[in-house]
């Protein structure tokens, strides 16, 4: 056969390479997202402004405030009076206020003996950002408890991510998102573009089976995704210090399955959509939204209502993100995530099957 597959792949690659803007976007999005999520957007508690209200500045109070000021998560903003609390919180000057009760030292000593039981310290926290508020409260309690010379009953150890870095959590999520974007969205748009431009008509009136042309279309996008994958892994390892103790090859293999799945999804979308705009919308609504909301990228799946937890089972990204998280952060070997891999593999076969069956070599 002289109609070599290579020349089809070459043609597709030319389309992509000549569309410099799209190319730039595809290469930049991962970098931008990784830096954004890695540094700017974080659920970590940092630089929380705290003011203190103390009726008398006793040794005990001073000691507590010193600890607070020394802590890197908090910035001590000075002493204020009881009346100022509301105004300071409202203006956003401070996010939390620590109120020491009167006679703090003496009652503290009594409390240590178990005699005094009423609270000695009041925490007033701006909870307009729930995440920050709850983390700040937890931190403040730990810091202030220490000074109350009371030993905590719990010894806590944060496994896998002892510093609670949010970047660790986001990297797998971003990977789940990017590959859908590159593979599914771009493939579907490029197939639908041929329909829209009318070139599909000419392609169909040729002896080549359309499936062959479609596969040739997928290869360059697959190659781009592999480059993006390597880029993300390098960024994650060297910029965000994600441990990847589970081994890079495992992550790579699971990602390859996910890439196939995304490409099949793109093909499926292209069989439904008639215009590039429709393909974009379907990709955005049917694929991006569930990934953002139901894959554990932004919200833990366990926190979702039961119904959505159930729905999340059919979102491929959920399984991929879960698998990558386990390998990247928990350091599990690929054998330990066989369930995720099996589900992803099954989905790939099913989606590819449906879309090939749906793909028509006529116009209607």
């Amino acid at each position: 056969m002289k109609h070599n597959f290579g020349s089809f792949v070459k043609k597709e690659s030319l389309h992509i390479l000549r569309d410099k803007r799209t190319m730039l976007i595809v290469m930049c999005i991962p970098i931008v997202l990784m830096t954004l999520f890695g540094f700017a957007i974080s659920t970590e508690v940092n630089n929380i402004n705290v003011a203190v209200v103390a009726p008398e500045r006793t040794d005990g109070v001073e000691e507590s405030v010193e600890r607070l000021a020394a802590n890197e998560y908090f910035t001590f903003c000075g002493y204020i009076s009881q009346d100022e609390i509301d105004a300071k919180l409202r203006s956003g000057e401070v996010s939390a206020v620590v109120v020491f009760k009167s006679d703090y030292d003496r009652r503290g000593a009594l409390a240590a003996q178990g005699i005094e039981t009423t609270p000695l310290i009041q925490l007033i926290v701006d909870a307009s950002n729930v995440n920050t508020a709850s983390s700040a409260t937890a931190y403040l309690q730990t810091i202030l408890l220490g000074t109350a010379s009371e030993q905590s009953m719990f010894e806590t150890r944060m496994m896998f991510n002892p510093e609670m870095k949010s970047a660790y959590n986001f990297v797998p999520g971003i990977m789940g998102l990017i590959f859908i974007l590159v593979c599914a969205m771009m493939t579907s748009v490029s197939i639908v573009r041929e329909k829209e431009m009318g070139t599909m008509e000419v392609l169909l009136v040729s002896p080549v089976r359309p499936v062959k042309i479609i596969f040739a279309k997928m290869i360059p996008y697959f190659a781009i995704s592999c480059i993006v994958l390597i880029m993300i892994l390098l960024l994650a390892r060297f910029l965000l210090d994600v441990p990847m103790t589970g081994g890079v090859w495992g992550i790579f293999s699971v990602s390859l399955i996910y890439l196939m799945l995304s490409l099949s999804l793109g093909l499926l979308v292209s069989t439904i959509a008639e215009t590039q705009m429709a393909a974009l919308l379907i990709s955005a609504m049917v694929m991006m939204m569930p990934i953002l909301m139901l894959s554990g990228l932004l919200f833990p799946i366990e926190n979702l209502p039961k119904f959505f937890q159930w729905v999340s089972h059919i979102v491929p990204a959920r399984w991929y993100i879960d698998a990558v998280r386990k390998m990247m952060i928990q350091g599990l070997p690929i054998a330990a995530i066989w369930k995720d891999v099996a589900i992803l593999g099954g989905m790939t076969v099913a989606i590819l099957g449906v879309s090939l069956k749906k793909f028509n070599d006529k116009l209607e």
Partner: protein
Amino acid sequence: MKAIEIDNLSKSYNKGKVQALSSVSFEVERGELFGLIGPDGAGKTTLFRLLTTLLSPDAGRATVDGYDIVKEYHAIRSRVGYMPGRFSLYPDLSVEENLQFFAALFGVNVEESYDLIAPIYKQIEPFRTRRAGKLSGGMKQKLALSCALIHRPSILFLDEPTTGVDAVSRSEFWDMLAGLKERGITILVSTPYMDEASRCDRIALCNEGRILGIDTPHDIVRGFDNRLYGISAKNMFTLLERARAMEGVVECYPFGQRHHLVADDSFSVEQFTRQLSDIEGLEIASAEPTIEDMFIKLMKR
């Protein structure tokens, strides 16, 4: 065996709501340059898509190069060249890259077919590294024709190839088709321009999914059995209204600079000029019927 045999072919869209073709039947001889003439919505594109196996018919049957368009559509796809109505090449690929891609699509080398496409391709070869999207209308059309010919098809389907192309390029294009016909290629071409019909061996006049008449351009015109006059005056609109109301006038319609007046036996020029003597600058002269006149006549029937 005829190049194309069409027998009672029908096609509708939207679950039968829009009837695009109703029981169309005709045959195209081998090596013939056959024209489908008709306005937009006549069903020309639907017929092309049925014959190039892009659509399946609702009823009727047809063969192309001896192969059934439903059962043996794969065989047809390697034997025909198809140039759709819209520009259907890749605007971001160069002239050369487009040609090479279509050669690969049909499993041939550009060199093998070079002798066939040379008369056409030579004209755009100086621009072979230019992106197809940046070509002029006439050049795009030459490239599209070169691509449709690259695999030496036995039958060429050209759907409105001259729409949106300047008059000089249109005329050149028909010269190219004549050249291809000499090499034995059967050509089915559609056009909304009646003046191009005379360049075909035979034409089919079609409207609203039906064939109104099929014959050579010469004989089609000969079938026009009424007397025809060209009339003009200073106020063309009043003339049209007055002429239509007159006895012995079958039809009167604007035709270029003048109006064409179709007359029956009771019509007399003297009576016409006498009755319309109040119209300033009235002129009447007998006119040769054209394909367009015949088309209007058949359409009204």
